[in-house]
């Protein structure tokens, strides 16, 4: 089946087969990353613009690395340097970038739905690098890629997402990816950050850590933002950690071969014990490495590449 999408906007709109295509393409690129010469010529002569209107060093670096390994030219716009701080609209900024002959835009934006808006406006591909609390598709793809490496088929696997679910685009994209791949997903955390509305997305909602973690294959932790405390979502970081932080005792409730994930950056000692983050069960650094292969796959496919044609190194 050929890849037909020009844009990667959400996981929600992808069919299971499309997710499989991206993962298979990412696996091919990962094999390339293991070689001495890691660069492939797939996007040679093309310019990828990273339009990051909300700061995110990690995701931007990962996309830059991915584009460079595909031999693309990369230009990155940061929120603080960009003209949007001078009041230019997203529409004008994006149309200018297109007029500069960019071949693709990777957009990070604080407003949900803005990649969709941009995709309707432009004729070049738009890849969503995180839109508000909506979706972060490449993060979910690298997460399920990592889970499959460790666990194989995800059907019937029990995945727990723990933390600030309400404001998390990572949680939403993972929920869609995991349910499409047949996993059994529970979202856990304080009721203020894990509202029951999430049931409509096909997941279990829990506010009790022990039963949620029991026999889980994966626990994915989300970063706790201190500003949620000010807004009254929880009383204090200390209370959060005492109720929902992952420590050794609680990690013992998981399946013996369960893995611990985190999209980063980690608050050591808040959502996870520092030791646990560095333990053999943690796959946090593998996630980062896989992120490059997955983003290579996404850029490659949206630029018109086909899964079966992943190119040989230069």
């Amino acid at each position, binding site marked *: 089946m050929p890849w037909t999408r020009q844009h990667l906007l959400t996981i929600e709109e992808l069919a299971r087969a499309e997710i499989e295509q991206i993962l298979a393409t990412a696996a091919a690129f990962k094999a390339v990353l293991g070689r001495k010469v890691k660069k492939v010529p797939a996007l040679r002569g093309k310019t990828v613009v990273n339009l990051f209107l909300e700061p995110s060093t990690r995701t931007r670096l990962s996309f830059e690395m991915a584009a460079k390994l595909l031999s693309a030219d990369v230009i990155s716009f940061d929120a603080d340097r960009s003209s949007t701080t001078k009041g230019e609209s997203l529409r004008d900024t994006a149309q200018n970038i297109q007029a500069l002959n960019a071949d693709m835009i990777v957009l990070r934006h604080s*407003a949900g739905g803005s990649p969709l808006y941009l995709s309707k406006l432009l004729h070049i591909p738009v890849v969503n690098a995180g839109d508000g609390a909506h979706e972060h598709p490449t993060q979910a793809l690298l997460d399920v890629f990592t889970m499959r490496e460790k666990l194989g088929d995800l059907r019937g696997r029990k995945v727990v997402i723990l933390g600030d679910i309400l404001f998390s685009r990572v949680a939403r994209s993972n929920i869609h990816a995991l349910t499409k791949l047949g996993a059994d997903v529970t979202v856990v955390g304080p009721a203020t950050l894990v509202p029951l509305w999430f049931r409509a997305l096909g997941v279990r909602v829990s506010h009790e850590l022990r039963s949620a973690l029991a026999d889980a294959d994966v626990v994915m932790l989300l970063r706790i933002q201190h500003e949620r405390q000010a807004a009254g979502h929880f009383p204090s970081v200390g209370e959060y950690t005492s109720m929902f932080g992952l420590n050794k005792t609680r990690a013992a409730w998981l399946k013996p071969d369960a893995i611990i994930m985190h999209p980063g950056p980690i608050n050591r000692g808040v959502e996870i014990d520092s030791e646990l983050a560095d333990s053999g069960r943690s796959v946090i650094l593998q996630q980062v490495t896989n992120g490059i292969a997955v983003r290579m796959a996404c850029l490659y496919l949206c630029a018109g590449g086909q899964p079966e044609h992943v190119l040989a190194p230069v």
Partner: protein
Amino acid sequence: MTPLWIENGRVIDPATKRDGPGDVFVADGVIVARLTGAQKKRAKKIDARGLVVCPGLVDIHVHFREPGQTHKETILTGSHAAAAGGFTTVVCMPNTSPVADHPGTIELINAAAKNAAVRVYPTGCITVGMKGAQLAPHGSLKKAGVVALTDDGLCIQSNELMRRAVEYAKMFDLPILDHCQDDSLTKDAVMNEGTVSTRLGLKGWPHAAEDIIVARNIILSAYTGAHIHMQHVSSAYSVELMRRAKKDGVNVTAEATPHHLALTDESLGTYDPNFKMNPPLRTEADRRAIIAGLRNGSLDCIGTDHAPHTPTEKDREFDYAPNGITGLETALAVCLDVLVRQNKFKLSRVIDLLTRRAAAVLRLPAGSLAPGANADVCLFDPEAKWTYDAKKGFSKSSNSPWHGQQLTGRVQTTIVGGRIVYRAGRIL
């Protein structure tokens, strides 16, 4: 002035309980029971075959943006949109620039209203600058001609200030119209809080924020006896609060918008800002409750909350687009569709909600075809199918969720004070 003889139509006038074939006569700007022989000879005959003839529609909630935001709408263009939609009387909200918290601003509005195609009544602000801190000069505003007081778009958060406002305004017999929203519950909110906002990752506006203020207003009305009107009720719980308050005889009224009758938050899946307004579209259960509230009288009337914005303002990220949609040109067709065709309301009931009952909320001299009434008349074809092109409409703005949609029911002629102001797609 040429007398008018509107013949062969189906005359529906809830104020006089007329519903049937008949003629409507107009002389010297008012409705008359019959024309004299001399008047008959001079009269212009209007053939209303196949049309409903009803009082001109009344909208107690429009934003005409003048003074200060005339790039969005003017009193003239807004009045043209009103006439094209069959409305002959509209009430303007005071969130202009400057806000209408001063009699001088009301005079500006009244001056512009003289050239309008329909009757335009101003409202004044409840508080200075709509800042919710200090009462505006209600007495002077009344003298300048306001028909009600409101900080629409903003809701007075202090219960004490609201209590004083309704007590003070009651002296001048001025109703208070409140946009019911507890701001502490809706910080940064852009749509209804629920499963759809959860899916879209947009910040939710819980209906509880409306319900709390509706309850507060009912309590303050019961306590002071003052008339408080709830603008654009959007939640099922608020409808139930209104039902109980009315049963208890509390002096409160409420309106519903055509968009809350017709649409739900499910429409927001494409992040289209033309579905963004405040209060937001809510759930199917809320929509059903509003329809039921209009049926059983918990809600008094329909008001459009016609809120024009330019394409530049609306065409952007959903989070950053302003709230509001236009509504005057589509209201009748939408109400006919949702209430008459889908929910089997009697046509006369829907006309009542758009005429007599809307006028009654603010005691405006409108909404009746009784002899002696202002000759404000709407002729519409309830079966006419048409496609609404908002860009070719009469409003200066085109931010409508019904743009490009096929609608059924179209205004054919609008008469204000015995003068034909709109006919067959043209402002006269």
